[in-house]
């Protein structure tokens, strides 16, 4: 009996010790304040897209920008949702996030049926019917009121609410980096010293969707940013700046994340109330 009691106490001691070791205090508990925004997906549903790593960089910059505005950005580990976006057979949260994103896009002002990824076109046709997108008068009228909010489909709203509840977020944010275009400038006076110093220009367009999780109301934002770099050697004058594509993309992304967060704070969050 005595041995059994001692054995029981020792095992209890080991269990408590093990639990106390694994339950360390939350290191970032002090940050758990303020409005919580769940970043659902940062992806491209356009017909040109970047490598996955570019979306990852964009996601990091966006989170930092949101944090600087005292907005608490949260996401699951797969913020770019490669599987949910690209795998037709995807299931689980990734597939649901992709569906919510697509639903927000196809109801939005910026959706171009002819310049969208195949998956998005299929979803648009299934959900709204192809005819809607070729009703030129309706499309033109809708594009003229870009600030007007709209709702997710009835069938998608509960899924958005469930995900928001799971992460304790008030809003869901989706970014569609739909078009990034890089042109190499081979002008007459462009410098030809090394490959990376030739002139380049980059143009990037994206749409973002801020969703009030409790109502399913969506605010759509749009931004376009450009950056050009070129070294020039004229007859007696030389000047300019040369940089590689990653550097250009870096500048463009910083401008984009800055624009998104400013617009979201100034307009988006009020609009979806």
């Amino acid at each position: 009996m005595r041995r059994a009691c001692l054995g029981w106490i020792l095992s209890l001691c080991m269990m408590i010790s093990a639990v106390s070791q694994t339950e360390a205090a939350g290191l970032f508990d002090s940050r758990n304040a303020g409005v919580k925004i769940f970043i659902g997906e940062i992806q491209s549903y356009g017909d040109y897209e970047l490598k996955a790593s570019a979306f990852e960089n964009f996601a990091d910059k966006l989170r930092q920008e949101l944090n600087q505005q005292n907005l608490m950005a949260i996401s699951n580990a797969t913020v770019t949702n490669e599987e949910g976006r690209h795998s037709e057979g995807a299931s689980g949260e990734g597939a649901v996030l992709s569906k919510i994103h697509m639903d927000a896009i196809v109801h939005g002002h910026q959706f171009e049926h002819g310049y969208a990824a195949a998956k998005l076109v299929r979803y648009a046709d299934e959900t709204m019917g192809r005819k809607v997108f070729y009703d030129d008068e309706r499309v033109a009228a809708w594009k003229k009121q870009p600030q007007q909010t709209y709702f997710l489909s009835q069938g998608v709203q509960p899924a958005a609410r469930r995900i928001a509840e799971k992460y304790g977020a008030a809003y869901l944010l989706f970014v569609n980096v739909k078009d990034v275009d890089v042109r190499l400038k081979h002008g007459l006076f462009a410098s030809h010293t090394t490959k990376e110093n030739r002139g380049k220009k980059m143009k990037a367009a994206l749409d973002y969707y801020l969703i009030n999780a409790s109502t399913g109301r969506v605010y759509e934002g749009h931004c376009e940013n450009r950056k050009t770099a070129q070294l020039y050697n004229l007859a007696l004058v030389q000047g300019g700046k040369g940089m590689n594509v990653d550097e250009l993309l870096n500048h463009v992304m910083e401008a984009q994340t800055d624009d998104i967060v400013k617009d979201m704070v100034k307009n988006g969050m009020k609009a979806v109330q």
Partner: protein
Amino acid sequence: MRKLIIMLMTLVMLAAHGNQALAAPVVMLAGFQSRISKSAITMTDIDTSFQEMGQVVSEALYAELAGNPKFSIVDNDETASRARMDETALINQLGEGRINLELQKQADYIILGFITNVSNIRAQSGVLGVGGKDGTVHVEISMRVMDARSGALVFVTTANSRRKSELKYNVILHRKDNGLGDALNSALDIAAQNLAAQFLAAV
């Protein structure tokens, strides 16, 4: 016998309480990986490999974070390498809500570092042979802190640094300085310090 049991139980509870109060979260530094791909129009004049760059940043970050009483940091090479090799599988597993028991035993948080941009920006200006050229190394890195239990990203930040790599001018004097390697190492080191400062400010 009863007294003995009560005494032992009290000791157990005191030990557990003390242990809990002392338990600082364990942070695992799982190294730095590159998100840049070398191509004809990206990095052509920087010869340093991404592995070497990652090592410089990793060591600088570890030095900045070590010794902080709020957490203990581990940099077990073998475990960190495995965490990076299995990064996608691990993230998917945690993202689906599955628990990784092996990781739980070793860390509460995992720092995944990334080199996101390395470039040498050139600038030039001059008229009638009077002028100059310069080069500036620009490094940008980012850090994701992942909760080892839930897979949630609990903190994400980026940091960057610029260092002059080349200076050449012709006025009356002619001068040329070129130290791309030194400028790169210095920029990586400072970027790591900036990253560490942001991490420490957040905890």
